[in-house]
């Protein structure tokens, strides 16, 4: 790969923006560029990244999923309630329950989208309301305080895979969440690149009719896509739980748009077929820095929503303006 092709890629520009942004923040507040802050950012944004990868896969297939945050909170809240009710204190069980819920709810999405052929945005808007409404109506609305959260979940949230000691003797480190993220990234990358079903996701996103005629089983691929997104949402639900050590059935829901924004900023086409995991991760990094570090440069949190809006608009404008210019060039050449 030469330099020229590097500059044609969206990811390159995005990474440059992230770097410039980081430099600006560091010059204003040097706390930003410390290992400690970086590890902290990784720890708190790994969950978002996992969710974003789920949405990324759905977008690749030419759909959209705004219900994944509702799925995540359903998985989390059901898992923690089952754990407390049964007295089981095991993080693996929590993950299993949450993933199970995620797979089931993802399958419900897939039934509507694949069998009844409904538009994905409106379907997932509907199921998001359906899932969250059902959770609050039948599983309760009470938040679960840190005192009632099983120990294994709290321990997991503080677990590090690398530990460093500060001069004053206290410790900080790279969270186990990063390991989960890496596993999911590698798994997704492998699925998309080396399996038939992964190639199928790109194919139906690029051109559904063509994919059908090539012999791809579209129904199977769509079921896989939405259930995979559900699975990742389930994983994220438990990660979020052990991160904040508190479970409120109204959390997570409502953040879907900023997660989608991260994926789209990462260069994934909303019409499907184009996009990379690298781009998605950089997109998440950009949104996380915006959400978590505006305070570091002295801007109040009221500006958060505004800046996210501006960044999404700028990001998509650049992408689609580029497309338009390239199209014109193509026409002129022909």
């Amino acid at each position: 790969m030469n330099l020229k092709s590097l500059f044609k890629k969206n990811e390159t520009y995005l990474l440059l923006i992230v770097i410039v942004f980081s430099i600006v923040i560091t010059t204003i507040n040097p706390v930003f560029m410390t290992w400690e802050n970086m590890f902290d950012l990784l720890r708190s944004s790994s969950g978002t990244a996992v969710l974003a990868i789920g949405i990324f896969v759905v977008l690749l297939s030419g759909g959209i999923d705004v219900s994944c945050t509702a799925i995540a909170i359903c998985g989390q809240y059901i898992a923690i309630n089952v754990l407390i009710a049964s007295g089981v204190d095991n993080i693996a069980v929590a993950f299993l329950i949450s993933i199970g819920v995620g797979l089931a709810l993802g399958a419900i999405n897939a039934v509507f989208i694949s069998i009844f052929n409904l538009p994905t945005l409106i379907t997932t808007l509907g199921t998001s309301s359906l899932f969250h409404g059902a959770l609050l109506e039948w599983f309760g609305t009470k938040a679960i305080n840190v005192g009632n959260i099983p120990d294994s979940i709290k321990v997991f949230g503080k677990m590090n895979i690398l530990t460093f000691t500060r001069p004053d003797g206290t410790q900080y480190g790279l969270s186990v969440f990063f390991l989960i993220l890496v596993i999911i990234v590698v798994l997704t990358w492998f699925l998309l690149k080396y399996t038939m079903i992964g190639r199928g996701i790109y194919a139906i996103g690029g051109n559904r009719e063509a994919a059908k005629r090539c012999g791809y089983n579209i129904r199977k691929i769509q079921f896989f896509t939405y259930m995979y997104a559900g699975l990742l949402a389930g994983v994220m639900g438990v990660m979020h739980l052990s991160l904040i050590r508190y479970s409120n059935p109204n959390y997570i829901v409502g953040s879907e748009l900023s997660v989608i924004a991260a994926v789209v900023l990462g260069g994934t086409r909303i019409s499907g077929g184009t996009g990379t995991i690298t781009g998605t991760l950089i997109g998440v990094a950009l949104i996380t820095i915006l959400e978590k570090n505006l305070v570091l440069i002295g801007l109040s949190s009221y500006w958060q929503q505004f800046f996210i809006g501006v960044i999404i608009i700028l990001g998509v404008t650049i992408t689609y303006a580029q497309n338009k210019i390239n199209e014109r060039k193509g026409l002129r050449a022909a």
Partner: protein
Amino acid sequence: MKIKLKSSKNFTLFIIMMVIFIILSIAMPSKFLTGINLQSMASQFPEFGLLALAMMMAMITGGIDLSVVSVSNFTGVIAALILADSIESSTPAGVAILLAVLAVIAVSIVCGLVNGLLIAGIGVPPILATLGTQGLFLGLAIVITQGHSVSGFPESFMALGSGTVLGIPVPFIIFVLIALLVSVLLNRTRQGFNMYMVGSNPTVAKFSGVNNTKVLINTYILTAVLAGLASLIMISRANSMRPGYGTAYLLQAILVAVLGGTDPDGGFGTVKGLVMGIIILQITQSGLNIMSFSPFFKKFIWGFALLAIMVINYLLHKYNERKRVMEMNKLKAAGQAAD
């Protein structure tokens, strides 16, 4: 074929509406079928009814407008600030209201223009463009107010949201007038006709001499203005404005538009169907309220209703297709027999 399908869709809606209305009237005549309840229903729905009209117009052109509630928040905050300020500076109420209305219209036109330019000018898909502006406009509303609510408006402004004329709530009258205007726009004007054209097939529209860019920009300006007008009713009814108000309306607006027979892929949608969709939603909501169901159950029901309606539409469409194919086969068979 198209006309037949259209009328049958609205007919189904009419039946659903009447059935729900009759069931609720018989089940609880003393609570549902009272003048007060009818009056309160008629003053509740116009604010999201206007948003639903906006959503329908965007959907007719094959797009969607996720920013309607944010536009309402933004214009609502501006109107609220003007009105609240007038009390402090003791500006005459009439002047303040006029100023507020003009500001709302001006700001919403700018918002719509931003959406329109992104979508038609740059070619950003409507979902993404309005997703971005949703954050932007809501963000502006939050920044302006620092997240606090604005309250305290002139007495005469309250009439807009809670006044009545001959027993009919003012918001209802406003809604009827605007719905009629939108209906005329869609059925009798070039812009309306072109909106359906662009929604059915943008390429064909373009090569038929339609200026797609202009049609789309106008459409998103219109949807934003409707959202702005909805905000006036909102702040007048609540006597205050807090950014973030009415986020549930987004789902409801989409629900009502789809329930009312609007095709989310573009090219089809009628004001008549939409109004029936709104009435169905409102009387169901009122019924659920009277039976004191929790807001969570309602949330569940709205999601369920949206999915159920789309599945029914899909099955009906499939059934009609099959019937048509069978009829054609019959004709073919008859033709062969005649030979």
